[in-house]
């Protein structure tokens, strides 16, 4: 199905709908458009789209509810588009199963970049389900050997730092919430772990020689979590 994915755009604002529609069309993606939650649920059941772009503020249904219902039957990637910039809503959407989010206003390039990341992940999943070697730019991460190489040189990582990095690398391109990372790495979640996580992140960044003005690998989603660069 590569290159022939069907997008479902759920958005009640006509302008944004046509903007996203045009953007997709310019890259020759196929799409169907829904303006209400009911319509969206209907399309989900009948057309089986491959990717959903979803506005959280719909007139008839809460976007979060659509994510939950969609997740109950399908694991299609969901990109949330919302004017809500409140962190907890983003986190709720991500924790409910959304893969990524964009806050209005956003540019075509931003949207297309996110879509490319998702498509790449979708295709990778089809080809090689369990990957253990990753190469992003100058960085190489070998999960089985617990090894991190930067420009061919090995860098020492503590086991905890490595676990955090491995989690990020395995989910490259996807936004991981603070809670998610802490639960995965520490096993349980405590509010106080938030600060420790950031210290780990800062240390990992130092080791990856990140430019603070232009992080190359670890991108911060302020108030939400982290995302590992995908390309």
């Amino acid at each position, binding site marked *: 199905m590569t290159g022939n994915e069907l997008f479902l755009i759920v958005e009640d604002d006509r*302008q*944004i709908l046509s*903007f996203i529609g045009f953007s997709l069309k310019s890259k020759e993606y196929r799409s169907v458009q829904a303006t209400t939650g009911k319509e969206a649920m209907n399309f989900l059941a009948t057309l089986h789209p491959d990717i959903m772009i979803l506005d959280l503020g719909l007139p008839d249904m809460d976007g979060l509810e659509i994510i939950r219902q969609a997740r109950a039957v399908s694991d299609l990637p969901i990109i949330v588009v919302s004017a809500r*910039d409140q962190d907890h809503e983003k986190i709720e959407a991500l924790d409910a199963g959304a893969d990524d989010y964009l806050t*209005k206003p956003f540019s*075509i390039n931003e949207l297309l970049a996110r879509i490319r990341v998702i498509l790449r992940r979708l295709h990778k999943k089809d080809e090689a389900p369990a990957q253990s070697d990753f190469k992003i730019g100058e960085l190489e991460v070998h999960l089985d050997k617990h090894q991190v190489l930067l420009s061919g040189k090995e860098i020492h990582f503590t086991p905890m730092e490595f676990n955090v990095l491995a989690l990020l690398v395995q989910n490259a391109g996807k936004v991981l919430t603070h809670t998610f990372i802490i639960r995965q790495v520490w096993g349980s979640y405590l509010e106080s772990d938030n600060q420790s996580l950031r210290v780990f992140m800062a240390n990992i960044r*130092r080791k990856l020689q990140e430019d*603070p003005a232009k992080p190359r690998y670890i991108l*911060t989603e302020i108030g939400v979590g982290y995302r590992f660069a995908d390309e």
Partner: protein
Amino acid sequence: MKDRFDLEILKLSAGKSTMHSVAAQITVSVIVILLTTLVALVFRFWGFAEISIGVVYILCVLIIARVTRGYMYGLAASVANILCFNYFFTEPYYTLHVYNRNYFTTFVVMLLASVLTSTLTSEILDSSALASKNEGITRMLYQITSSLAKASGVPEVASVSVRCISNLMDCDTCFVTLGEDGVPDWEYTYSAAEHRVISKPAPQAETKEKGKYVLPVSSHAKRYGMLCFPDGAAPAGEDEEKLLRSVAVQICVAMEREHLADEKKKVEAQAEREKLKSNLLRSISHDLRTPLAGISGLAEILQYNLEEDENREIARAIYDDANWLTHMVENILSLTKIQEGKMIQNIQQEAVEEIVAEAVKRAAKYAEKQKITVKIPHDVLFVPMDGKLIIQVLINLIDNAVKHSAPEQEIRVEVYPENNKVWFNVADHGTGIPEDELPHVFDLFYRADHGQADSKRGIGLGLTICKSIIDAHGGSILAENNTEGGATLRFWLPYQGGMKN
């Protein structure tokens, strides 16, 4: 209100109403003795034994002790009865002489029996009177408490209070409530003539007239008001004062309850307002952002799709303006948050490098030609702040630097700790700020009017917002010219050492 709280008239004097005057008691005693003597004479006429007559006299003492108050009457009656018995019923009759010495024994026994009887009776009467008085007080307090419990709102509590106290003391009392600052605010006066409570604003000065009895209604934490009594009215005796004080405590409890209820209502109203405000802000931000996102998005598509350069330029202008408007909306929303909320709610420990990186990433969109460099300390700095707002500040400062910089010039963002402060500097290599304008850079609607006129827009809101945000964080923002040219806008935030690696 009048009907609901029409209390049974309670009076302290209620227990005293059976009290007889001395003359009446003596009269009653004499009559009882005369009647007894008459009955005894009839008994003797019928030939009853002397012993029966003696018993009749003891009964007489019992009756007198019952109907009179105090030991004296009983004792006097006992002596009087012995004399009567001696006079009428011992030989020789109608004299106080006695032939038979045995009679003396009889007299003594009779006297003892009488005295004992009368004393016991008096004691029982006294304790029963005390019990009924206590019961009355308890009932009164109960009634006052339950009326106060039914009252809701300070005015009702005050009205019920003066009504109770006025009835209790049988005078028109007045209750002055005190406001938050301890100054009298309302005065509730009971009028027995009109059978209602009159309320009016209290005179501002505390009118504590000399000689008038005033009962404060206060807990250890707060003064709620005072009960003022008219001239000459004051509690009689310790018991009455004690009773009044317990009533005052009940009133205090009721006032305290109303006060807490008021506080709760205020807090709820405040929360409701906050909720309304944030809903309004949310809908504004949604309503403005969505069409702006549409405009900028569609203009962007036009830019890519249009063939002619001129038209592409138009689309680009639309796109730029829509972006600028979006930036303004963000700024105005931040300003509303600060000015209306007064306090910053979302203070959290944020890692400075993450905040700076986010700000630089977002500001870089407006700085296509300038180079932004960042210098942050090696240690992770955690500074308490509202991350979103500080990002907004940094974006505005970088944006300002971009406007005052020529293409290819460097914009330097630097963060470093110094004592209990963390400094954030944004330096440019532009034209700098004229010395006389330095103090006005952060004034509302002030805008430096030099340099290329077409590359700058805005009404000077950006920097004003920065100042509001930094002030709200307890920090400070200032503008300086660099010795080597260009200007530095810098601010600091309070910092307590934070977590170090």
